[in-house]
């Protein structure tokens, strides 16, 4: 008997071989949950450490950014920098939409701390975007 032909092809997609893989629509739902509340996607997937790590990291970055009066970009900003800032900021989900309660006095870019805080807000969003992608992949492939 030919041993080579009896083996599984090594380039077979993991998702189709894994009976625990989620349908694409469910993976999108996990990704959406991960966007709305940082860590929620991983929490629903029972990835406890990742859920806690992403929630703590994103929440602390965003809250510190607001406390230091950073600028959260709105869609109305002109130019590619404003658009990039908006895309980065909105990645933090609920923390972007709660920017007004967190930052009732508004941003203060007259000091260097305000500029640093703007980067902290962007970093929170980017970190959560990475978490969203990871939640989507984890839901689709049930990666350990």
């Amino acid at each position, binding site marked *: 008997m030919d041993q080579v032909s009896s083996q599984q092809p090594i380039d077979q997609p993991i998702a189709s071989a894994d009976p625990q893989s989620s349908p694409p629509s469910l993976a999108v739902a996990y990704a959406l949950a991960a966007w709305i509340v940082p860590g929620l996607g991983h929490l629903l997937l029972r990835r406890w*450490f*990742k859920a806690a*790590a*992403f929630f*703590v*990291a*994103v929440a*602390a*970055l965003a809250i*510190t950014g607001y*406390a*230091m009066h950073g600028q959260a970009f709105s869609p109305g900003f002109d130019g590619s920098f404003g658009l990039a800032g908006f895309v980065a900021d909105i990645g933090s989900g609920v923390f972007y939409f709660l920017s007004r309660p967190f930052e009732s006095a508004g941003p203060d870019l007259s000091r*260097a*701390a305000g500029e*640093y*805080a703007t*980067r*902290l807000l962007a*970093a929170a969003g980017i*970190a959560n975007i*990475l*978490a969203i992608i*990871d939640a989507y992949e984890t839901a689709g492939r049930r990666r*350990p």
Partner: protein
Amino acid sequence: MQTHHLTAMSLFALLVSIAFAALGQRTPAARLRRAAVGFALFMAFAIGVAWLFYSVSS
């Protein structure tokens, strides 16, 4: 909130290192190690670049 620049940078380095470690590693020990190394590299690079700029500007 008045935050020292070094404090803000350290917080940024710590939190981003934790996020990257959670993404890139699968075991708790590997995640802890990656977070510690990432944090140390962030700080070393930032302080090194700061000293480089200081030496160039003065």
